[in-house]
């Protein structure tokens, strides 16, 4: 049977299957625990068991001392739970993270509409009191005939708790997105679970904010920007750099132009990578990271940056930000990974923890 593990001081929980290690389960649930060798020798993943019982597994006697075993420490990369657990790990608590329990919601598709030639908007009316979430988070959607749910960021701000909006790009050969584009229609019952993810604005940090979005990766930043401007009345400088292939793919363009007129602290920088003559484009031509570099004159110091989009775009933006002197502690990312992206992922070193 699966056990529930709660991580202090974060307060987040994850499930561990039989014979699965704490570290493996945590990482697969999107919870970062420090780790290095992954086979019980280096002790980087040492955690304190506050409540519950574990098996130590193959932890080396030199990596996990007897005194530490007596104190209830274990190595997350080797330990397996034999009861529900509360562990204390060396992870940073995020002052801006709200601990909102994951819940299942039933709802009805209210509308499926075209945002661009490849992207559909889906509005879902959820039953009951609506979903509490932080702008930027995502939900898992159950679709008929699919074994696993599909993850989509919420494009609507938390103020609209009862009406959730998703932006769905058609992935070539993707079963879930094909179903949404071809078969899903208003009136269909639908089940979603959420909120999920650690992508949200660190509002307690007062530095100006840069959003960088590509394609349907606009959904989270849209919710985050609307939440900051319209709900919070946040007056810090907020810049959105948003890239699409051509003008037809640049959806919600008018909405952001409208926001710049209503809020003087908001700047909108759209960029097209392959504009055609039909686009009549007078804005920036090129990729998101190039647009950002030009707009900020290659100096991103003293900002917080939030990146959302396909992995290639996110990586290019991280590089640009770092060359412009903004580093890991001020960069937050949400990668829109499809099954195809997973196959060509480059192996990473432990140099960076979250970007």
């Amino acid at each position: 049977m699966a056990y529930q593990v709660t991580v202090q001081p974060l307060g987040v929980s994850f499930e561990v299957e039989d014979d699965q290690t704490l570290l493996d389960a945590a990482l697969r649930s999107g919870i970062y625990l420090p780790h290095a060798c992954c086979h019980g020798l280096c002790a980087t993943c040492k955690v304190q068991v506050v409540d519950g019982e574990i098996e130590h597994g193959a932890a080396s006697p030199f990596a996990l001392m007897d005194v530490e075993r007596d104190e209830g420490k274990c190595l997350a990369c080797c330990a397996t739970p034999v009861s529900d657990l509360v562990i204390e790990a060396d992870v940073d608590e995020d002052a801006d993270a709200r601990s909102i329990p994951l819940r299942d919601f039933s709802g009805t598709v209210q509308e499926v509409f075209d945002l661009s030639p490849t992207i559909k908007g889906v509005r879902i009316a959820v039953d009951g009191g609506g979903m509490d979430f932080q702008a930027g988070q995502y939900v898992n959607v159950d679709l008929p005939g699919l074994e696993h749910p599909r993850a989509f960021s919420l494009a609507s701000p938390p103020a609209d708790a009862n009406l959730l909006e998703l932006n769905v790009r058609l992935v070539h050969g993707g079963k879930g997105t094909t179903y949404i584009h071809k078969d899903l229609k208003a009136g269909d019952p639908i089940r979603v679970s959420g909120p999920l993810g650690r992508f949200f604005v660190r509002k307690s940090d007062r530095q100006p904010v840069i959003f960088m979005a590509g394609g349907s990766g606009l959904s989270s930043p849209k919710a985050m920007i609307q939440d900051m401007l319209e709900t919070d009345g946040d007056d810090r400088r907020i810049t959105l750099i948003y890239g699409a292939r051509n003008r037809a793919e640049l959806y919600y363009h008018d909405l952001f132009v409208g926001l710049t007129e209503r809020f003087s602290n908001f700047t909108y920088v759209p960029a097209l990578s392959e504009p055609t003559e039909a686009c009549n484009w007078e804005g920036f031509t090129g990729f998101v990271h190039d647009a950002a570099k030009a707009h900020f004159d290659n100096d991103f110091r003293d900002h917080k940056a939030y990146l959302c989009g396909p992995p290639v775009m996110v990586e290019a933006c991280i590089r640009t930000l770092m060359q412009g002197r903004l580093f890991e502690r001020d960069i937050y990312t949400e990668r829109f990974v499809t099954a195809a992206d997973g196959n060509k992922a480059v192996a990473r070193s432990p140099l960076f923890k979250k970007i």
Partner: protein
Amino acid sequence: MEKTTATPPKKLGLKEKYALMTRGLGWEPTYRGADELYDQIKFEGIKIHDWSKWEDPFRLTMESYWKYQAEKERKLYAIIDAFEQNNGHLNVSDGRYVNTLKLFLTGITPAEYGAHRLFAMLGRQFPGVGAAIACQMQAIDELRHVQTQVHTISQYNKFFSGMSEWRHMTDRVWYMSVPKSFFEDAMTAGPFEQMIAISFSLEYLLTNLVFMPFMSAAAYNGDMATVTFGFSSQSDEARHMTLGLECIKFVLEQDPANVPIVQRYLDKWFWRGYRLLSLVSMMLDYMLPKKVMSWKEAWEIYFVQNGGSLFNDLSRYGIRMPKYWEQTVASADRLSHETWNTFYNFAGAAAFHSWAPSDEDMAWLSEKYPDTFDQHYRPRFEWYREQEAQGKRFYNNSLPMLCQTCQIPLNASEPDDPTKTAYREVEHEGNKYHFCSDGCRDIFCHEPEKYVQAWLPANQVLQGNCFEPGVDPEAPGFDAAAELFKYYRLTPGQDNGDYRGSKDEANWLKWKGLAPADAAEAA
């Protein structure tokens, strides 16, 4: 089922707890200026604007540090004692195996002592408290490793030749100058270069090449004392590697002007480390009776793949792969053969044994090195064996030309031509200096004033500096080799020469109750 109702009081994170506990333990100097106190921190041109951005990744108090290390020591020595009482040395795969240990223990132990000194100096030099404490702890770790290795030497020294004078040999014997000069080069550099050299390049980028294959090899060859030492120090290495990563990130993020300086340090210390590891290459391919992986395989996994993903991440800062890394890949199927050939040649002046590979060894080498072994190296080793069969084991009695930078004999072939030895030379202030490679030449050219001072063992012999006091090289009947061995404290016919026919081999056969022919089969 609902589990809890009452909300527990909010807990502090470990980072916050540590910050509160250590709050105010660092201080700003008042009656002397910081520049005077930390007098070496600026001359390299590395700009640090804010030491508080150094995130202490360990958050280890001295109290828990002592507690952990004491327990590690108890466990390690319990196993070394058991090894000793059970005559563990008889369980290694073959007597030849001990020669890898001789080279490792006598070469690395003084190097670790060098690392101890280096980190003690760094702990004194860094103005940041997190960095200073991490360096001080590592200084103590290194001293612990030295001690455990000395105890291991002391165990093996009871049964095998060549280890009794290791401390004395460190400063004199030719190949010992390779690790020695490596650490002395690092120790005499600025504090940031020291960190990049040892914490990053050696501990992070290259240490797995020593530890992983070497510890697997020890286990595979029945040497449980070394395996246990490996586990014991690997638990420290994780901390050392984290320090290397934290250091390079910190320096690169502090100022864009630091990037080209760090790149130069990476270029230099990658190359220095690679040359040093040529000793590991021959251990893997030639010295282990039971082999675990080839040098080429190890380099592919630990440098090309793991190092490649690290440099891919570092490229976000504008750092590129270390200069000449392509040459290390091009030479990966030649390095071990060329190095072992050198030690076969100069076995007369080494404190461990070398030998020509057996038929079985050569079959393995052909399989692992299909593009080079049969074509370039097998004929040479077969010739050595023929000579040996005729009772004329080949010893090279000349003195090799050494590289001014890495101090390794000029034995490596051109990166693009396996049949041609690589020679590089540079004129500096009227003198000619020789190098094994483009990498070593470039290192010299950046700081010639430093490397002209190198104490090159072969050159020192020729200058008459490697004989005991009072020896007159001009006296009739002067025997240079005999006098050199006295200076080395090397007992000829016991510590040196071929393994076949050595005292080590004779003892091994006696202990195991084998005849020489059985030994050849058992090996």
